[in-house]
């Protein structure tokens, strides 16, 4: 494996030569790598966005605190000022009992008696919407608010939160499993492709061995070639993903303005990492595995 400068220049020259000479095979390999990586990236992007959306949705989950009637405003404010710095508290919004009544009326517009009742003597309280970063933290938070003397009741949609949480966990798991399966499939397909490409050149390898070349002397150009094929394929895939995602974010901004897409740079940095490292590793390993049988001579 020791290589002098001659050796390095030989390897680089050889690799370029082979890539160009077997341009047809190179093209097949690069396009296969590119497609596999693109499919993989596509679902990586989906997973990333899934995580992003659930994170955003979860952060919108809220808890309602109703304050006792006739509590002085100052006491309320004192609590608020404190609570704002409790861990997991993201935002606290005030609502009046009129607002609470209005939202109830909206939900039951056809229950005339109910509406009449609420309109006459509003039985509801003033209160606050509390938003959190971690929906899992809501029960403890609720407990904590409830201990405050000025708090009348704490309401949170426990079931909804835990369901959303479960669902997002399941989706995340499914995402990673799909990702893993696709990764394996990609690996297999790329290895197959590069093995077939090496297979088509098996005679060449055998002649090299018979002329006295060492295994590593033969292997290096193939390894470098596998690396280049992997990188080229990955870059093509990355280009497609980047272009596609830019288009998507543009289109989504118009069609689904409410939909929270993960930002381009964070998507691309993950995609680049996965595809490039994956491409290089797979290319190199596939070349080496494929060569093994033909070096035994």
């Amino acid at each position, binding site marked *: 494996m020791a290589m002098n400068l*001659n050796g390095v220049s030989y390897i680089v020259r050889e690799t370029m030569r082979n890539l160009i000479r077997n341009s047809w095979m190179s093209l097949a390999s690069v396009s296969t790598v590119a497609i596999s990586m693109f499919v993989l990236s596509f679902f990586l992007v989906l997973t990333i966005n899934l995580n992003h959306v659930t994170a955003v949705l979860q952060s919108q989950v809220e808890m309602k605190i109703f304050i006792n009637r006739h509590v002085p405003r100052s006491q309320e404010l004192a609590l608020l000022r404190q609570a704002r710095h409790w861990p997991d508290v993201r935002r606290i919004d005030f609502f009046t009992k009129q607002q609470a009544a209005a939202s109830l009326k909206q939900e039951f517009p056809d229950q005339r008696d109910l509406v009449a009742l609420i309109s006459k003597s509003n039985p509801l309280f003033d209160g606050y919407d509390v938003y959190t970063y971690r929906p899992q933290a809501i029960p403890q938070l609720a407990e904590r608010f409830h201990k405050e003397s000025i708090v009348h009741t704490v309401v949170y949609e426990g079931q909804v939160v835990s369901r959303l949480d479960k669902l997002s966990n399941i989706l995340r798991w499914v995402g990673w499993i799909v990702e893993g399966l696709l990764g394996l499939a990609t690996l297999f397909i790329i290895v197959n492709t590069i093995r077939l490409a090496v297979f088509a050149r098996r005679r060449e390898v055998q002649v*090299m061995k018979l*002329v*006295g070349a060492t295994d590593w*002397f033969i292997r290096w150009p193939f390894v470098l070639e596998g690396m280049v094929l992997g990188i080229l394929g990955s870059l093509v895939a990355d280009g497609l993903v980047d272009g596609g995602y830019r288009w998507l974010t543009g289109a989504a901004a118009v069609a689904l303005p409410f939909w929270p897409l993960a930002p381009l740079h964070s998507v691309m940095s993950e995609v680049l990492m996965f595809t490039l490292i994956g491409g290089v590793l797979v290319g190199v390993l596939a070349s080496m595995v494929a060569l093994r049988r033909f070096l035994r001579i």
Partner: protein
Amino acid sequence: MIRLDKVSKRYPNGHYGLVDVSLTIRRGEFLFLVGPSGAGKSSLIRLLYREEAASQGEVFVDQFKLSSLRRSQVARLRRQLGVVFQDVKLLPQRTVYQNVAFAMEAVGASTRDIRKRVPQVLELVGLSRSRDNYPHQLSGGEQQRVGIARALVNNPIYVIADEPTGNLDPETARDIVKLFVEINRRGATVIMATHAKDIVNQMQRRVVAIERGRVVRDEVRGAYGYES
């Protein structure tokens, strides 16, 4: 020194290529290997550069005991030898020049040495004009001469040629054999399997005749066949 000690070669399909062959070839010898088609000449030669391993017996090439050669040593063995293969075995995607240069690159020669030596050897076999052709752009005889050039380019201690003149006209064939004689005179050992009766008879060198895998004749100044 090359020594075969009671060597037999049995192929996987049960066929015997060589049967109980013992043979010693000293440094500096010039040896013709003759015998009818399918006698076992190539089988013997393939043992020497370790494309095949002997089924029984032992083959020695200088310090190498071929039955117990590790993989890294196989390459070292082959670098001592300049082999002309019966089926030529050129690299199809390289030009004449690159095919010959590859043998030098493989042994780690410097670019300067390669640039100097390769044209010399191509000149010797009469292929200077074809240096940038690919093998499929050459005639059968030209391909064979590229194989010869490649075998000689590293100034090997042993030149092992398996019917190197099969596709050459008698005149060119004679030139190639003259080249081998010249190399032999400078100290290399030459082993040449051949059907070229005229050349063998004319040269009066050691002749080993093989038939059905057995050495049937070994003469210091021999001729091609019994009848001639």
